[in-house]
């Protein structure tokens, strides 16, 4: 199965830059998630790899071979659209056989492929059904079988779980990944759901405004985000801005109102403008008065296993903390609380001349 490499891909529609120097590599047999907000250029990247959209400039390589000018039908890279695009006038079996029929494979190979594929996705008994007679999950499996039957070497999944209901979506995560991994197919999975990406991907590429912001394993991008945007997009974070006052293994940052907080190691200099980001799960609140920041509980949100406590901090805005639901009785609206965190769990980002708001903006 091919290794896919994108080099300096640019594509704009009018003034919108859907790809702005997009570059990344997907290894042979790897399951890569392209994660980003709506309009970041995820689908454009997928379409360029499939050959359905021509980039303005830049190149696409499959195993080192330049395929930028190769027609979609000759790439063996199958796109699964959000709605699966099952051909409505064909049965499940006819849909699955679409690729083999087009390629004119010998009859016995076709029969065998069909049987194998239907078996693989557990749809043998529904082979004569039309797509509209199938449930969402079955439609998705049919589309997958159709892609695999065509001899696909690359699977391009555009939000493949979006149209399913919440429970099914979660159970299919594992199924989809293990199918692709067991067949060794190079897979690119586009999603805007961070949980989905964290659970499914070998590596995650976070994209924003047509550029890759960070690429790495789920643990890397979650725990060592390289920008406030990545920190906030994967597991919501609280932020404050200030300048570095002290560097010594840990970093000390003072904000405009003179509050000093501690954060982890960072390659910054004293006096530099930085942002400090703390994941909501690492943000602790307490009623004792020895935290970095003081505030008043504004609301609590019950989310089953966890509860979110939103605290209003004067001059800074809202800080959220995720605590186990068992502690829900500890805090009520109006309580005066203090906020703290372990310094190594707080990440320092150099801001240079950019503002934090620009860094965090999702569009």
């Amino acid at each position, binding site marked *: 199965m091919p290794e896919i490499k994108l080099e300096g891909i640019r594509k704009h*529609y009018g003034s919108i830059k859907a790809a702005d120097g997009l570059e990344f590599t997907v290894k042979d047999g790897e399951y890569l998630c392209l994660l980003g907000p709506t309009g970041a250029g995820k689908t454009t990247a997928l379409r360029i790899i*499939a*050959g*359905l959209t021509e980039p303005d400039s830049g190149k696409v390589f499959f195993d080192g071979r330049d395929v930028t000018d190769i*027609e*979609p*039908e000759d*790439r*063996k*890279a*199958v*796109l*699964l*659209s959000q*709605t699966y*695009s099952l*051909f*409505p*006038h064909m049965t499940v079996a006819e849909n699955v056989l*679409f*690729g083999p*029929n*087009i*390629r*004119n494979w010998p009859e016995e190979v076709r029969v065998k492929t069909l049987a194998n594929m239907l078996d693989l996705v557990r749809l043998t008994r529904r082979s004569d059904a*039309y797509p509209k007679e199938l449930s969402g999950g079955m439609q998705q499996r049919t589309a997958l079988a*159709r*892609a695999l039957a*065509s*001899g*696909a070497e690359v699977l*391009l999944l555009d939000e493949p779980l979006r149209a399913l209901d919440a429970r099914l979506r979660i159970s299919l995560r594992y199924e989809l990944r293990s199918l692709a991994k067991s067949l060794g197919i190079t897979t690119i999975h586009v999603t805007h759901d961070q949980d989905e990406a964290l659970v499914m991907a070998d590596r995650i590429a976070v994209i924003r405004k047509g550029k890759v912001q960070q690429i790495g394993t789920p643990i890397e991008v979650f725990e060592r985000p390289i920008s406030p945007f990545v920190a906030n997009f994967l597991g919501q974070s609280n932020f404050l801005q200030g300048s570095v006052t002290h560097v010594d293994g840990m970093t000390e940052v003072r904000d405009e109102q003179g509050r000093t907080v501690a954060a982890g190691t960072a390659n910054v200099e004293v006096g530099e403008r930085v942002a400090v980001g703390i994941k909501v799960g690492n943000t602790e609140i307490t009623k004792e008065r020895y935290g970095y920041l003081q505030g008043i509980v504004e609301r609590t949100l019950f989310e089953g296993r966890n509860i979110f406590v939103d605290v209003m901090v004067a001059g800074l805005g809202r800080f959220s903390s995720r605590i186990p639901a068992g502690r829900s009785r500890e805090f009520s609206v109006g309580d005066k609380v203090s906020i703290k965190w372990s310094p190594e769990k707080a990440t320092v980002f150099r801001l240079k001349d950019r503002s934090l708001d620009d860094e965090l903006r999702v569009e």
Partner: protein
Amino acid sequence: MGPPMKRTERLVNFVSGRKFRKSWYAFIIAFFLIFVILPTIYVLTYTYTQWNAIQSNVLDNKETVDMILGAIAASFEIAAIVTIVDFVVGLPMAWMLVRKKFRGKNFLDTLIDMPLVVPTAALGFSSAIFWAATPSAMNAPPFALGAITSPMLLIILLHIVFSYPYMVRSLAAILEQIDETYEIAGQTLGASKLTAVRTITLPLFRAGLVTGIILCFSRSLSETGGTMIALSTMANSAGFNTGPTLIGTWKKLSGSNPDLIPQLAFVSILLIIIALVLLVILKLVVMKVRLPMGKVWPTPEKILSRGLVPKMKDGSTVLFLAVFILIPSFFIFSFVATSSAAVGDWAPFLNSLGYSFAIAVIVTVIDLALGIPLALYIARNPSKKISHSLDILVNVPLIVPTAALGFSLGQFWTDQTLIPSVPTLLIILAHVAFTYPLVVRNVTGAMEEIDPSYEETARTLGAKPIQGFRRVLYPMIKSSILAGSIMAFTRSLGETGATQSVVSDVITAPVYIVQLVNTNQYYLAGLACIILIIVSYAAMLLLRYLTRKKQGAL
């Protein structure tokens, strides 16, 4: 695998190459511009090249100018009145067909399309016998109305017959797409039924309204054959002319009197320009004008929403269909049944019918072969400027009156010297020009409804573009292709104006019927009409059969 398979494969590979695809689309667009658009508006260049002749033969002659302006004014007045009437009576009908459930709905649905299968020549004859005071030589059946003596009124009644189905169909098509939940939401917010419909649904309606208006207006403006027949059937038409009938009459005379060319050119130019201006106004203005829909009169509207009023509305809608559309369309049967048989020579009519049939078949084949690719191009490149312009240009031959189109096209092909202007070839080209848009429109519309991801997925699964079309797209748009081709076929079969004005001496079936009426051979004309109706009706049944079969497979 045998060698023939390999040959097909090689062909598929060849036509799927990027270079071939690019040149193929370039060819399709060039065909459309050179063979359809350019000839349609060619006569406009006469304002520049032949101005002197127009000046001396037309403008300096007050009588001619008055005659031309009178005819054109009559044409537009008729078209405007017809369109308004169609809207007023077509809206409740479209409403019934889409929103109401009742027994016999399918039957009613079929009845609406009936006038479409009757060639306008036959319609003109049939309506005139029913409505108009006819000469005694004709022996109209005693139960014919025989009351209309105003030619203008007769033509309005005639044009309503064949434009009504277009309005109902356009409005119904849009209405089907408007979600009823909007109205229901309006009603749960306290609006009466009428208020909800008027303030919520109607404003969403504009696109369908524009299509309906363009179709009705242009059909009325274009109509030649039926109008000429109706005028010569009525007892005293007192030299009444519409723009197209003027062209028809003069073109026939121009065979012996070439001095009439400037007059013909002038009428055609006026008709084309005014039609184009109206098209632009409709396209640009109607979509933007804000209708004062916000005002609400709760009490009277509540009263009108309940009880007897809606029932009366539905009843009168159906009554209108029966009296003003269906009876005039098919009155011809009772006329032939009550007339005493006349012996005639059938050979010329059958020859002309065969000729018309052959033309219609060839024209439909050309329309399909070259129209579907253009539709594909327009529907699949919506962001390109050129496809947007093509989309607008496609409407031009639809709105330009066919008589003017025919004259312009005839002049274009005779003025050039590259291709010999054989009459049959000219007629085919003329018919292609005004039927081509019907195929393109239908197919573009269907294709725009279909998510391009189907074809794209097919391609990533290994299908060449042509295989993707054949196996994926074609089955989904088959019924629209069929609808478009039947429209093109019946329009070609029934067309009089373009045929007469492109070549003055070729006899197609509708032209022959016009001649029969002009020479008072009413019985033969009636029978010929009936044969034409049967042939067209058979074509429509075929369409219904084929599309139904397709739905069964889904």
